[in-house]
């Protein structure tokens, strides 16, 4: 089975994101970048398939700035087999999906795993849009993929449990979580990844226009800072519990 994972490089989850002086972008100077968390889960899910069946080939691709190469390198170090970069400094979400559709047409994966949403724009658009452009069915927010006769079973997390859907191949799913935590790159993995070539093409060279329906950012601000409030500490557990319940009812008015 060949699995393709479109991934996006985003500020690392530990970065304290700051708004830039222009007020419409974030400070990118000096921050660390990572593979978007759900894409990392998708990679782990694919590598777990590869652990079970070593003939599995796992490829990653990204549409992004030149620095995105580091994210691809990280995916290779985790154990992915192939990586390719489509360079574009900005591209509308639908243009990204078009570029990915082209990659799918050329490389013919059996399964495409996207993240359920990228943790920069938090949209969750590109996965379903890619399935739409390909004319494929898709299953959103899965936590498990199981190969079965005639396709794959995709486990979708819903309120109260999992819906299990069977999809014929090729298929696309967006990933919510893998069974295990995403693995760290191993030392031999890192060495191997260093030697791998990452072919690069410009979005325009694919004949894709970077425009499409999108938004214009008017302003950005950090969420209001919450000051630490009161620490209740007078009395024993029972007394403090009663003070708290009273405060929540009479002062905060949330009971």
């Amino acid at each position, binding site marked *: 089975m060949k699995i393709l994972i479109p991934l996006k490089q985003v500020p690392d989850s530990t970065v304290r994101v700051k708004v830039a002086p222009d007020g419409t972008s974030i400070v990118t100077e000096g921050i660390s970048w990572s593979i978007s968390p759900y894409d990392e889960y998708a990679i782990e899910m694919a590598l777990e398939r590869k652990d079970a069946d070593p003939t599995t080939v796992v490829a990653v691709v990204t549409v992004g700035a030149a620095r995105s190469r580091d994210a691809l390198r990280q995916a290779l170090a985790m154990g992915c087999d192939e990586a390719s970069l489509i360079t574009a400094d900005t591209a509308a979400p*639908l243009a990204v999906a078009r570029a990915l559709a082209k990659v799918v047409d050329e490389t013919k994966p059996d399964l495409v795993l996207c993240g359920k949403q990228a943790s920069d724009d938090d*949209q969750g658009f590109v996965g379903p849009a890619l399935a739409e452009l390909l004319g494929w069915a898709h299953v959103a927010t899965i936590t498990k993929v199981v190969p079965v006769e005639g396709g794959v079973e995709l486990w979708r997390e819903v309120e109260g449990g999992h819906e299990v859907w069977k999809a014929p191949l090729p298929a696309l799913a967006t990933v919510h979580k893998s069974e295990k935590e995403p693995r760290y790159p191993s030392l031999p993995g890192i060495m191997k990844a260093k030697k791998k070539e990452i072919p690069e093409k410009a979005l325009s060279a694919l004949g894709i226009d970077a425009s499409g329906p999108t938004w214009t950012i008017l302003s950005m601000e950090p969420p209001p800072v919450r000051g630490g409030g009161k620490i209740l500490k007078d009395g024993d*557990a*029972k007394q403090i*519990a009663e003070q708290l*319940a009273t405060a929540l009812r009479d002062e905060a008015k949330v*009971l």
Partner: protein
Amino acid sequence: MKTLVVAERKGSELRRVTLELAAKARELGDTALVEIAGERYSPLPFVSALAKKVESEKPDLVLLGATLNGRDLGARLAARLGRAYAADVTGLRVAGNALELDKPMYAGKVRAKVRLDLPAVVSVRPGAIPLKGAAEAPQVEKIEADGSAEKLTFVKLAATATGTKRVSLSEARVVVSGGRGLKGPENWHLVEELADALGGAVGASRAVTDAGWRPNEEQVGQTGKTVTPDLYVALGISGAIQHLAGMTSSKVIVAVNKDPDADIFKIADYGIVADVFEFVPAFTEAVKKARA
């Protein structure tokens, strides 16, 4: 301005978010509500039926709840129609020929205002639009999901043991979350009893869902659910930046942690430096009394 609201039901009742969307749509102008009837949500049959409706009615705006299914359906609908799309917005206004949206980005670490040209598809975070008083029950037109578009086969529903009797986490007005400080799944009755006393939902930190103490669906944070309840109670949670990303917009935050230096206290309105095993049962009793 013409808006089509996609209605969702939980059981036989319209979801609260649907009422919120209907109220917003009425404020914006012409409003119609449509519900897609099918045994269960699946993208192709739902998007096919909805796209047909949108093409015939030509609303300027399609509004969906940013629920599990609403987000998925909205994304695919926007792609099918080539319309502009914004997911999980927390506010919207009309500005000339466009919408001005409040859009949380970077897992809630930034609040952006964005302009989105019409016609558009937008999903709105549950709880983001305040409902004034009792909402009138809106008229909802039912359309059938287009089963002929289906390419998937439904196999089964594998239910989690915890069941679904409580309110859903992302719509709950009160959320009580437990962290690693609870020590193990066998102690979760403490979290549940407090949640029941408060009439709220149960959440968890990722340390807890990763350990398999609780199902993934209860995880709050950057890679879990974003919640904005009136009251969020964090029990034995340290307050890692990724957890905060999912709950700092709560109206009132209560934290119980035995470490006075825990980061969670930096954002809590009420902090209690205590052992959860001692404090939580006392608090549950106090809540019952205060509400009686």
